[in-house]
Structure formats: structure tokens, C-alpha cells
């Protein structure tokens, strides 16, 4: 259900009278209208899937990656603006590498999800930045077993058994 912001949607640092931040919601729309991604947590691991989008027949196969590995034990599927997604992945990679460098053990998935969510949320706080136009599903396997997290453009992050984003998410969820 779309509603017109009319003046309250010009900046990410403006609330509407009914308490909504429209810019963040519009970022969510970018995700909703994109190719579907799905993640499932199983007893012994995680499965992530992305819809293969062929924007042009001239593109070489495998160069339109929407599924990225973050570290030895975690991976990320991206829905929405692919370029924004690359930034999020890059940040996740560097967080995971840095954690291991400082603490000497692989980064727990919960921590990684927290860091990614904080980073995405950060970009909704300042007028000179725009929110990420992508949502990600993060899957990982650490000491406490397999875990699945979904992070939305607002910075919301929850742990899931199964998650889906993009055009076909309703169909995927049924």
C-alpha cells in the first residue's frame, strides 16, 4: 500500500507526522521489486538461493553475482540494488577478517549480523547519506551451529528459520 509522502519524504532525517521515515520505506520498495532471494536454516547447515537475473544476453555467465561468501564460514545473498549490495558484502568481509585478527577465532554469526545491521542502519541516520537500496540474507555456521539472519534496508535484523526477499517473497514464504 503506497502513500504519498508529500514533503516528508525528501530527506532520510525527516519523520512524517505519523512517525514514518519515508526514505527508508522507499529503499524497502527497491528491494521488494527486485529479484527473489531465499534462505533456509537446516539441521546441519544453511542453504541460500538467488533468482538468476539475465539483464542482457551479452553478459558473461557468472559475472552477475548476487551470492557472495563473506568468510570461511559465512555467506550473503543480496536483493535490491546490486551495487549497494557489493558495499554491504565488502563491509561484512572486512568485519569478519578484522574480528578474527583481533580475537583469534572465527566471528560468530550473531556478531556479524549485528555489525552488518549497524552499518546499514548507520546510513539511515545522516542527511548526506542515503539508505542502502538492498536487503541481505546472511547465513553462517559457527560454534553454536547454523544460523540465518535477514537484514533490511532500515537496519532491522532478525534471526530466521527461513527468509525470503524480493518480488517472489510471498510465494516463497507459503
Amino acid at each position, binding site marked *: 500500500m503506497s502513500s504519498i509522502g508529500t514533503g516528508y519524504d525528501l530527506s532520510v532525517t525527516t519523520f512524517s507526522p505519523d512517525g514514518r521515515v519515508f526514505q527508508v520505506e522507499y529503499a524497502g520498495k527497491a528491494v521488494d521489486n527486485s529479484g527473489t532471494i531465499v534462505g533456509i536454516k537446516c539441521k546441519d547447515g544453511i542453504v541460500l538461493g538467488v533468482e538468476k537475473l539475465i539483464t542482457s544476453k551479452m553478459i558473461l555467465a557468472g559475472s552477475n553475482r548476487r551470492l557472495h561468501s563473506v568468510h570461511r564460514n559465512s555467506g550473503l545473498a543480496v536483493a535490491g540494488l546490486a551495487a549497494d549490495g557489493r558495499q554491504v558484502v565488502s563491509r561484512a568481509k572486512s568485519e569478519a577478517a578484522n574480528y578474527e585478527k*583481533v*580475537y*583469534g*577465532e572465527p566471528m*560468530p554469526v*550473531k*556478531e556479524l549480523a*549485528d555489525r552488518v545491521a549497524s552499518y546499514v542502519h548507520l546510513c539511515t541516520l545522516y542527511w548526506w547519506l542515503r539508505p542502502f537500496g538492498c536487503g541481505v540474507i546472511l547465513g553462517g555456521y559457527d*560454534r553454536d551451529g547454523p544460523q540465518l539472519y535477514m537484514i533490511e534496508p532500515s537496519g532491522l535484523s532478525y534471526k530466521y528459520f527461513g527468509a525470503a526477499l524480493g518480488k517472489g517473497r510471498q510465494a516463497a514464504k507459503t
Partner: protein
Amino acid sequence: RKPLSPVSAAMDAASSLMGGPSSADAPTDGEHRMGTTIVGVCYAGGVVLAADSRTSTGMYVANRASDKISQLTDNVYVCRSGSAADTQVISDYVRYFLHQHTIQLGQPATVKVASNLVRLLAYQNKSMLQAGMIVGGWDKYEGGQIYSVPLGGTILRQPFAIGGSGSSYLYGLMDHEWKEGMTQEEAEKFVVKVVSLAIARDGASGGVVRTVTINEEGVKRSFHPGDKLPLWHEEMEPQNSLLDILAAGSSDAMVQ
């Protein structure tokens, strides 16, 4: 001549070599050092850390009952040897980082993480620090663990570790006497014996033996007073005065 007082000795910032060659009189104004004997062993179910209690400034014993085993988290402790100030500062930083880490993680930090933080500080500041530490603790993933972080900032996981000046006298003993999978009681008796042997031979170690036992149930601190420690080969029984020797009956005072 400067009046000798513990306060002035403690306040003096001039550094001197650890128990090293003394010029003229016995130096008493050096940087606080823990000559030390420190030991950490794994047993079936946890770890026991032990240390002596002598802190010296040159030839003067600044603190004869110091506590060289410091807490980093609920489940991880560290034995400190080398410069007293350096190891205190390292412990303080690591305690602070681990505290934040525990909050973020939502569960107790692992022994490995604690040891890694210690060694990052030790390695990255190696030109400024003189700190030999033994980190020991228990976590639910790997059980009891001992990590050695000696002078250069290496990190090494071992079933047992020794450190400090008194440890030189313990290498052969540990090679011979150490066994895997001791019980808690065996391990505690073993470390007390081992530290008291080092105290007997090392002038920079002495005082009491403190132990800390860490396992799944928690932490237990123990104290073994100096006069209750076993005496070793050629050590004299403590005696009150020469009069006791004379009263013992020999007319020749030079014969015991």
C-alpha cells in the same frame, strides 16, 4: 645517604636489571619486578594456576605477599611475571576489552580470545614491554586451556606452562613428573610442590604460594603460607634463636 624507606623505593621510577649485577651496595631503588615463579597446568576438567608472591625492587622485597594471579573474566585468569607495572597495565586493558566483548557476545569469552588479546598487546608493544604471562581458564567449547605468552609476544597453547626466573629450575622436573589427566587434588598438590621447589632455589621467588583452580563449576582461590611449604634438600628447619640450638644440649655451639 638517602633514607631507605619502602615508599621512596616504590616511587622511584629509575629502572634496573632484574636482580642483576649490583653496583656498590644492594640496589633498592629499581623498577618493581616480579622475579617470580609462575605455573599453569591442565587437569581432567579444568586448570590450576600457581605463583609465588615476591615482588622485588632490586635487592629489596617490595611486597612479600603479592598476588600475581589476576582475573581477566569470570572464567579466565592470568599469571604475571616480569615488570610489575607492564603486566598490570596489560591485564587492565585486556580486562576492559573482554568486558565489552562479553557484553556484545552475550556469553562468557573463550580462553583463546583472552589469550589472543594479551598477545596482541605483548607483540605490538614488544620494544617497550617486559612481560611474560600465562593465561589459563575454562570455557564450554574447549574445556580447560593454558596459553603461554612469553616475552616476544608468541602465543602457544600447552598442557602445562612455566614462567618467570624460577622456572629455569623446573624444566627438567616437569619433563619428568608431568602427567596428562590428573585429578584436581593431584594437580593442586603438584603445582604447590613445583613452585616451592623453585622458591627454594631462586632468590627472586619467595613468600607464599597462591593457586587458582578454574573449572566448569567456577573458580577457587587458595593460599599456602611460606612456613607450611615442604622443605627441600639442605634447607634448614626454621628456628627461633641460637639459644634453642644451645639448649639442645651440645656444649659446642658450632655443632647443631
